[in-house]
């Protein structure tokens, strides 16, 4: 009975985090993006600086009619948003926020494997949507998503493997337990490659070729309306939370910090993830969209070699210090 209560409590907490953090990131994006462009952003909804803008957006989406095109593959079309969104919820379960068993949804021994495998599933949602919509723009978007997934999954896996090599374990809490501050300069290339590849996998600007709204009308999401479209958007922001959390725990030392009392490690984790989320927004505002060929070129000629070099460096240092 006590175990069941414990599990239920953990699930509820993870679920609440899953529902609120993406909204916080989204609202931050509204405001940060606006100020970076010399605007104010939402100012009305909720009264104080438009804090309830995303709630209002949600209400709007919920009121819209849920349309399934006549030529669409009905069941796949309706299932796709869930496939896009749920993997991020599962990944969130495995991200530890502080030291010890109490600060992680579920300790998974092969955590890195689990996390990367499940994150890959999320992209399937876009592929399903692209194919099932029976729309030319959606199909184009789906194909671009597939190409991007192939190109960027590889450097992401390689750099995650580099960290696992350094720690000698694939368990995420294990990696964090082994973390030392000098891992930061040691794994910095891997961290950057992981973060950039993660951005590309989330199809965030500047890697948003698959959803490029000005040329292929939001790609795979062209035919979606109402709540299902909102779920796709939520998946994007949940993806940001997950990516920032993963980068934090794999490369930035999670709850380790230069100072701070015991038991406050989770503050460091949240702080690092928040800074990374800001960087995600910052990059979106600053850079224009990469063309499809530039996108592929960046991955195959820059990120993959860099991640291989990082693995080699990790191996050499690991052998030397032993």
């Amino acid at each position: 009975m006590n175990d069941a209560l414990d599990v239920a409590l953990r699930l509820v907490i993870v679920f609440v985090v899953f529902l609120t953090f993406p909204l916080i990131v989204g609202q931050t994006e509204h405001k940060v993006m606006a100020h970076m462009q010399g605007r104010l952003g939402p100012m009305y909804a909720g009264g104080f600086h438009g804090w309830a803008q995303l709630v209002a957006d949600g209400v709007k989406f919920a009121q819209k009619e849920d349309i399934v095109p006549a030529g669409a593959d009905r069941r796949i079309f309706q299932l796709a948003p869930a496939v896009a969104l749920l993997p991020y919820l599962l990944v969130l379960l495995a991200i530890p926020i502080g030291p010890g068993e109490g600060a992680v949804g579920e300790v998974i021994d092969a955590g890195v494997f689990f996390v990367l495998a499940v994150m890959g599933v999320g992209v399937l949602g876009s592929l399903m949507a692209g194919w099932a919509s029976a729309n030319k723009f959606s199909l184009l978007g789906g194909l671009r998503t597939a190409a991007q997934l192939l190109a960027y999954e590889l450097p992401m896996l390689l750099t995650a493997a580099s960290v696992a090599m350094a720690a000698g374990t694939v368990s995420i809490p294990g990696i964090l337990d082994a973390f030392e501050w000098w891992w930061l300069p040691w794994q910095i290339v891997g961290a950057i490659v992981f973060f950039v590849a993660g951005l590309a996998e989330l199809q965030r600007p500047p890697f948003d070729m698959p959803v490029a709204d000005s040329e292929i009308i939001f790609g795979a999401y062209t035919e979606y309306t109402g709540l299902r479209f909102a779920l796709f958007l939520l998946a994007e922001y949940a993806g940001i939370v997950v990516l920032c959390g993963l980068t934090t725990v794999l490369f930035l030392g999670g709850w380790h910090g230069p100072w701070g009392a015991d038991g406050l490690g989770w503050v460091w984790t949240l702080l690092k993830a928040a800074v990374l989320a800001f960087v995600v927004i910052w990059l979106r505002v600053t850079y224009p969209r990469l063309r499809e060929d530039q996108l592929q070129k960046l991955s195959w000629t820059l990120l993959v070699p860099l991640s291989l070099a990082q693995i080699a460096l990790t191996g050499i240092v690991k052998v030397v210090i032993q």
Partner: protein
Amino acid sequence: MAASVPPTRPRIPGSGLARGLAVTLRTMTKKTVTEQYPDVQPDLPPRTRGVIGLFEENCTVCMLCARECPDWCIYIDSHKETVPAATPGGRERSRNVLDRFAIDFALCMYCGICIEVCPFDALFWSPEFEYAETDIRDLTHERDKLREWMWTVPAPPALDPAAEEPKEIAAARKTAEKLAAQQEAQPEVQSPTEPHADEQARAAEQPTRPTGESKQQTDQPRQEGDA
């Protein structure tokens, strides 16, 4: 801009990317220029072309504004009235009386030609701009509404410190000085021109915006006894 960078300078790879990030970050720390209009009224310059006000007393129904209006949005109706002679044996005079003065702001293109062309300063720009209507016919403002706008006309901006004296003031002052000199030259003669000089001096005191009295004096029947 690109040409100004010397081509020989070694470029650090990625420096352009960093500069882009710096631009957005710097913009974020600056104050935004957004005006929150319905909550905060905009700070408009005094010459803003918001709406046209009519100072009816100055209007002589000369119709110049209506004729010059490029899109014919000014409607004027008037009739003639006969003013009886002010003194016995004098001549009767006729004057125009304004019956209707309306501006259709649905047609108006805010060129300001009517205001420029008015020889008696009867039309003025006002910075008020919140007069949207749900019916296009309500955009035709009749004379009472145009009169209301008149009260929103701001005082004209002050002249530059070294600016030339306005012509009206200069002319009035010159006349007043001349008369004063004449008076001093022959102080024993209490000439009938004295009230006239007073009037000129009064005109010189308050001429920044010509008001009804000073402009309309040509319309009023002359005080024949003074001449």
